[in-house]
């Protein structure tokens, strides 16, 4: 996993979705009970990822949104350098 990308995604989630940083691990289930993201949050993640990496998440599956790890993998695979 690319830690640099993961850390940027974590920072974005903390800032845009007010998730407490100390409760957010790379493998935390984002849409599970603890973090509790919903459909509005997923829209915010799409915009956040696009702003950070220029990666369009509109083709991503539900599984890609599962955690910071899966989002990082998607960004790595679709990022154009």
């Amino acid at each position: 996993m690319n830690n640099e990308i993961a850390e940027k995604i974590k920072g974005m989630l903390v800032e845009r979705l007010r998730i407490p940083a100390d409760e957010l691990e790379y493998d935390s289930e984002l849409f599970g009970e603890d973090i509790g993201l919903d459909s509005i949050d997923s829209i915010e993640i799409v915009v956040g990822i696009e702003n950070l990496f220029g990666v369009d998440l509109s083709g991503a599956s539900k599984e890609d949104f599962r955690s910071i790890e899966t989002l990082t993998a998607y960004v790595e695979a679709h990022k154009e350098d």
Partner: protein
Amino acid sequence: MPDVKRCVITGLGLVCAIGNDADECFESALKGRSGIADVKCFDTSNCYSHKGAEVDIATGDLASGNYDRTTALGIKAAGEAIADSGLNMDSEEASEIGVILGSCIAGASAVEKYYQDKENGGKGSLEDLKAIPASVIAGNVADYYKAGGITANIVNACAAGTLSVALAIDLIRGGKGEIFLAGGCDAFASLPFAGFHALKALDANECSPFNHSEGITLGEGAGVLVVESYEHAVKRGAKIYCDVLGSGVSSDAYHITAPRPDGEGQMSVIRRAIENSGLTADDIEYVNAHGTGTAKNDEAEFLSLKTCFEGNGNVTASSTKSMTGHCLGAAGAIEAVLTVKAITEGKLPPTTGYTDEDIEALKEKAGSVHFIANKPIEKDIHYAMSNSFAFGGNNASIVFAKDPKAIKFNASKHDLYVTGIGTVTGEYSEDTGDYRANIDSDTFKAYGVKTAFLRKLDRLSQLQLLSGIRALEDAGITVNEDNENLIGICIGTGDGPMTEIANFQKGIIRDGVDKGSAFAFPNTVYNAAGGYLSIFTGIKGYNVTIANGSQSGLQSICAASGAILFGYEDIMLATGTDECTDIDDELYTDLGLKGKDGFKLGEGSVTCVIEKDDSAFTRGAKRYAKICGFSSARDTSGDRNDNRRLSESALTEALRKVLAEAGMKPEDISCIYGFGNGIGKIDDFEKEVYKKIFGDGIKIRLVKQDFGEARAASASLQFAMLARDIDEGRFESGIAVSYGTSALYSAVLLTKA
């Protein structure tokens, strides 16, 4: 309440994208003429939708050009309603006319201009700054026409216009006024467009309610109805359009933006309105539906209408938003005007935009409800309903009638008690020079509020949630299936979620209208705090948010008391909540009210549980104090161009009325909890008035010297501390008094329980 006053509509005013007056709008609606076109007032080139329903009048050409667009639209519609009703605003009768206006986005155009100026390196104009809060709208409209009755701004997002008419009926029936201009106004602005764009809730094309349901099209406008007691209307020989029978208000307690898919909250409000109007579901012949055009709304609303009117066989429905666009806080008022025209002329406007194929599909979805498609129908109807369902899960419904049956109310006279108090107050910090509340996630975890819920809440909503939970705990109330519909909420706030509004607007100024935050947008509406409180606690009853300066924290208690006395609820949470962040600090500093020669800003939230006697006795509830009277008063003495003016006569009248309601004399009162905030002129004025009425010996308590100017939270705190003082035997009785813009004062009198 055996002898319920008839309330009638005696005047109409309307401006929206399909016309500049009520007749023109109704004619357009019957002809299916849409006002939706490409957005003109800002650049949407990077957005996926470019549609809007704008009014074709420049702001500078409205109301002498001196007001922001939301207020200016309200002034235009109010002027038409006044003329239509034959009211003479130069006569003595003008002093009795109250103004209740709903708004969702309030001065959003002023917010944009103010921060755009600052972004460009300027200072931001004082005029824009003063026009930002919803608190000023009704007072400014009242002052413009020299209407001297009480004012209120209802800020329940898309249900605000309907709730304003509902409140007007209650005030008239409660003996608090004979005639009100009631309605709503909202301007087309970048803030809501960017918000709904971010939520992907805009239709890329013209909206298509109850049809393709691919999203809303935003609109703008204002609707104002003259709501008047029947006796008053007859006495002055007014033309009467129809009766307004009653209303229903409910909460979904489900989600901050989405309606309940099972339609429970919508059905609850429809049934409440029908019952409160003394009718049955079979009586209703036309429903002006909420019909926004989002898939979630339309699906839930199809279900609600089909279920509520199953067996009616005669009911028709349409959404005029297909032509007017969704005018947010004005929507319910605009639709109320169109509904009154429909019932009086016997012509029912359609939902537009259907192809032949669509009409076939509609028949499948509509069940036994006749959804009027494309063309109006002519039908002599007697009872019609207008529904609004808003963000925060707030639902409101009103019923109009051509010839009313006898209205049956189950309400009788009751004593009201304060049975619970929850407070959050600020502590002074040398760093900020403000009183700010010390709350964090651990504070909430102690009450079982999980991170997943808490992170959604903005500062205002967090403050409100905490005081609300504490008040329920203090009152010993657990919300469950048995009582969830018997408890309601009335939020008072002076400035609302100003931090969220400012930050959202600054974001779109910086990044573009296409880059608004979907996460932040739901919290820019003033009623989000009340919505979250209902969602967390499960309260499904009455839910209204009033924004009217500091005195909102007392006006909420007046409105809550009314909701109980009318039999809507047994228990009401009445609150006052205002935040203090760096944004609030900036705005009050720019206004010149904070700091040297001004006050110290504070924040907090106070929730008081107001309860009906038999409910309190049955529960064995602790009773802090008894509410013996509540009143509001306003006048137009002094310089009406200055909405921060003080009025000795209005303050005196508020006190006179509250004493009269309680059947008490000035010498019976042992203490006043006043509104003094450290500004010498205000403090001296207040003391002088009290001394004149109550004598030199009257004890005056001021909470703001210990907790800062926390606006609505201060007013509620005055009330709560008085209740505690009485409970603990320090005083026998007392009055809490507060003030708002345009010389509005509220007073609540408490005695021993």
